[in-house]
Structures are given as C-alpha cells and as structure tokens.
C-alpha cells in the first residue's frame, strides 16, 4: 500500500509524478474530512488545495507515509477550524466543533473522521483496481441488492453475477494474504463478509 521512502523523497523533491500520486491518494478523503467540519463542498476543496500548496511551497521530508498521512489530516483539520474562526468568531458550528473536539466529550471526533476516510480510501482503492463489470457487481451488492436485483440492473444472468462475486472474493483473498484462505477452508463457506455476500 505504501510505496516507501522513494515516494516521500520524491514528494520532498517536488517530483510531478509523486505529487500526482499524492493527489490521487489523498485529495478526495481529505475533502470529505474537511466537509464534515465546514459543511460546504467548495470551501472544503479550497482548504485541501491550500493545504497541499502549503506543503509544496515548503516541503517536509517524512520518515514514513503514516506520518505524512497524519500530517495531511491534521493540517486540513486545523486549516478548516482556522477558516471558521476567521469567518465568524461566534459561528455556532465552530463552537460545536472547536470546543468539543478539544474537551474530552468528543475528543475522538477528528480521529473518528480520519479513520472513516482512511477505511473508505482503502476500500475504494481495492474496488477500483477490479475490472469494470466486477467492480459494478461489488458496488451494487454493497447497496444490499440481491443477486437477482443486480442481474436485472446490469442486464446479465444471475450466474454471471455469482461468477463476478466469486472472482472478486478470490481477488480480495489474494490481496489480503493467506489468513482469509484459512478461514475459508475452516468454515467451508465464505466468512461473513461485510462487502461481499456470495
């Protein structure tokens, strides 16, 4: 998942290909994160864009990508709150956020949102790497649609839907390693997956 030190060095050296990767990986999750605070898509995009440009202007060399990620989320968090603070000191949303993310009651709000976006980012990355038909089957089955419904929506047979699911399952198993195989054999049936119900 992480490309290691070369990627971090390339970000630091402002290599365009690395920066493009940085955008593809983190732009969307960071926008969702900012939107939860700002409640506005355009403002969220502005804040995220500005945060990236700030980093580009004065790059930081991180030791691992986990630290870079943490930095990006924290920076977007702080810039969003700063934006609200500048906009209106008495802003009600700010008071709800800035204060109670600070006090113990909702101290985990920003951790919570970061984890949510990171899980989605990983799931999307996994799904987007699949061929188009299989990807569509997975997206539809996540909407809790039955095999019949999916088959009808896509204009394919139920058999084809099952086949795509099976392939997706194998693909995920390969991606995640041997643990899943073990579970699969032991249970004789696929494990209770949140994503795919075969």
């Amino acid at each position: 998942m992480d490309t290691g030190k070369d990627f971090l060095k390339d970000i630091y050296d402002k290599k365009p290909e690395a920066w493009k990767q940085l955008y593809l990986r983190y732009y969307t999750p960071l926008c969702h994160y900012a939107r939860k605070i700002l409640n506005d898509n355009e403002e969220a995009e502005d804040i995220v864009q500005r945060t990236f440009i700030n980093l580009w202007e004065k790059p930081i060399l991180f030791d691992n990508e986990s630290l870079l990620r943490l930095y990006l989320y924290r920076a977007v968090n702080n810039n969003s709150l700063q934006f609200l603070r500048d906009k209106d000191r008495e802003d009600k949303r700010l008071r709800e956020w800035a204060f109670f993310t600070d006090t113990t009651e909702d101290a985990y709000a920003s951790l919570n949102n970061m984890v949510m976006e990171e899980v989605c980012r990983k799931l999307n990355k996994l799904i987007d790497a699949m061929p188009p038909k299989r990807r569509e089957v997975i997206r539809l089955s996540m909407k809790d649609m039955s095999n019949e419904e999916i088959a009808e929506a896509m204009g394919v047979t139920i058999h084809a839907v099952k086949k795509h699911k099976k392939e997706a399952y194998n693909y995920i198993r390969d991606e995640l390693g041997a643990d899943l195989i073990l579970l699969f054999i032991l249970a004789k049936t696929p494990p209770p997956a949140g994503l795919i119900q075969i």
Partner: protein
Amino acid sequence: MKKELPDILSDLIYKDFLGALTEKERQELAALIKRYPIAAADRAVLRARMEEEEPFNAREAYLEFVRRTRRRIILRRLRNAAAIALLIGCGGMAWWFYQPATPVKAPVEMATVQPILPGSSKAVITLSNGERIELENLNRQLQESNGTRIEAANGSLIYSDTTQSQETLYNEIAIPRGGEFHLTMADGTQVWLNADTRLKYPVNFNGKTREVFLQGEAYFEVAPNAEQPFLVNTTRGCIQVLGTAFNVRDYAEEKKVVTVLESGKVRYTTAGKQQESRELRPGFLLEDVEGQHLHARQVNTRLYTEWRNGKYIFENASVEEIMSTLQRWYNIDVIYTDEKVKQLHFTGDLERYETFDVFLHFMETGGDIRFQIKDNIVIVNKK
C-alpha cells in the same frame, strides 16, 4: 515501520469489513474500540458512507494544483527578471548620476504566522440538571437546585454550601486543551485543574465520604476532616486522603496514573479484581502503569507540581514527554518526521505563560533538534 493510531484502526476495520480478520486481530480491534468510540467500526455506518455519491475529483484538483504552482514559478521568474532589469536600469542611471542604486529585494511570499499563545482560564461546567455553561473570563453567580451558591470569577469557581440538603448533587467541570482552572469546593478543598482535564465532584458534602472523579491532571489541597475521608477516583485506582496536598495525573494516552505527594498521607488502591494498595509518604511518587505492579520512588516533587505556580520544570525528560505536556497547554499538534528524535533528552526550567517559540528556541539551542510550524502543526525534525 511504526504505525500511528489512525492507521492501526483503519487497517483493522478495513480487514474486518472484508471479513478477513484473524482471531488475534479481532481481539485487538475489540480492545481498541472499547477505548476509542469509532463510528467506522459499525458496518452499517461505513456502508452508508461508501454509498455516498462522490462530489470530489482528484484529477481535476491536481490539474488546478499544477496550474497554480506553475503560475507561481513563472511569476517568480518574471519578478526576478524584472528586478534584474530594474537593477541594470538603476545601475545605468547611477552611473549617470553618480549615485548608488537602491537594491531591489525579490518579493518574499510570507505565510501569515500567528504566534502560538499559552493556555488561559477556560472551562465548561455541567450543573446537576445537565445545563452546561462556558466559563472564560466570566464573572457570574450560579445557583444549584439545592440552593448551593457558585461564584465564578477570574478563572476560579467557589462553592459555598449553606443548605442542609440530604441529597448529594454532582457537578462536572471540563477544561479543554489550552485551558486551566481553579476550584474551591464546598468543604474548602482547593483543586488546580490543568489543561485537558475533567472532574466530577459533589456540590455539597453530606455523605460518609467526599468522593470525586478525575480524568487528566489536578493538584489537590484537601481540607482536613477525619470524619469524611476524601477519595479521588482515577481510571485505574482510587486515592484515599485524610488532609494533604498532592498531584494526580491520569491522561488516557499515557496509560498510567501518577500520584505525587507533597505533604500529609494518602493511600492508593487499584481498581479491579486483583487489588493492590500502597501508602505514600511525602516526597514520593507512585506510578500505576498498565500491566505492571505499583511502583513508588522518591522524587523532587516540584518537577510534578510547579505547573500550578506557572512553571514547567523538566529534568532529563524526553522530547516526547515534554511535547505531550506542552501539547495540552498550547493546544498544538505535534508530528515527528523521525522516530529517533522523540528520544532526545532535555533539562530546563520554563515559564508556563511564555509564547511557544520561547520553548522551541530553548530546545533548538540546547540539542540536535529543529522545529517547523505549518498549518498550526509543530513538526519536529532532527538537526
């Protein structure tokens, strides 16, 4: 590679969603969710988030980024070229008029940097009826439903109990990061509350004991009363007091309770099945660390208590320890670019009400460490 907490959590939840957790990982996730209430761990919530339409386009944003950063480079080049042209022009004229040319400085793009200020008096009090009141330099009188008067003035809260009510009411005070507060309870006990702290305490004292509940850091000067022992409950254990002054620190991230006694006598008893209990003498520190036995040692108590007198004293403390204290007081985020830099050690004595750069300067001159401040984050680098 050491993973940060959000990464550990998101990896586990991701695998869980795919039905691919091992038994060991499942237990690890369960333990973490107990400590951190994580919404994404709920499959229905996660599924709903995954189904949302995607309004953001990373590719377009990248193109916009390229446009903006490229324009900056071109602008800068143009400016430089213009500056050179101007210098040549001025130089020519200087030659002509025999006067030195005014040097043209290349425009510097300055980010607006605001100084990081120390904490100040801030708190939210929750009355027994659930009403919450924010106290920032606010002077006002409050009254509890049993008639107890509460006076808020200049960063302190004073309770005076004149009622003979039998029912015990509780109030709760929460100090955010970057805050501090002083509390005088109805029995005369004084409490100094540090940043990122929460205390639940009775409004009036009529039970067999005087019992309070603490999360965070506080210094207590307990009014003596042998008939009503004073109990401080922490997340790990309970401190029993007979009239004394001591400091308690119990921050969730630190996974330990540290009690430091300045005078008098206290007894610390761990919670849970396998109880351990120790009596503490003045000048001693008692540590209750997760997964370890109680451990007492003699210390210079000022190191642990001077914060309430406006001083921080660090004696051979690691960067990580120092930053975890300063983080709460200055309400800042700290990110290390390197794991090793956390283990550098420092000794020093600092005023608590200085702006943050005074601390940074002190550490930079004293050790192999460099700080950068960006987007309200303090980035710690090796020199």
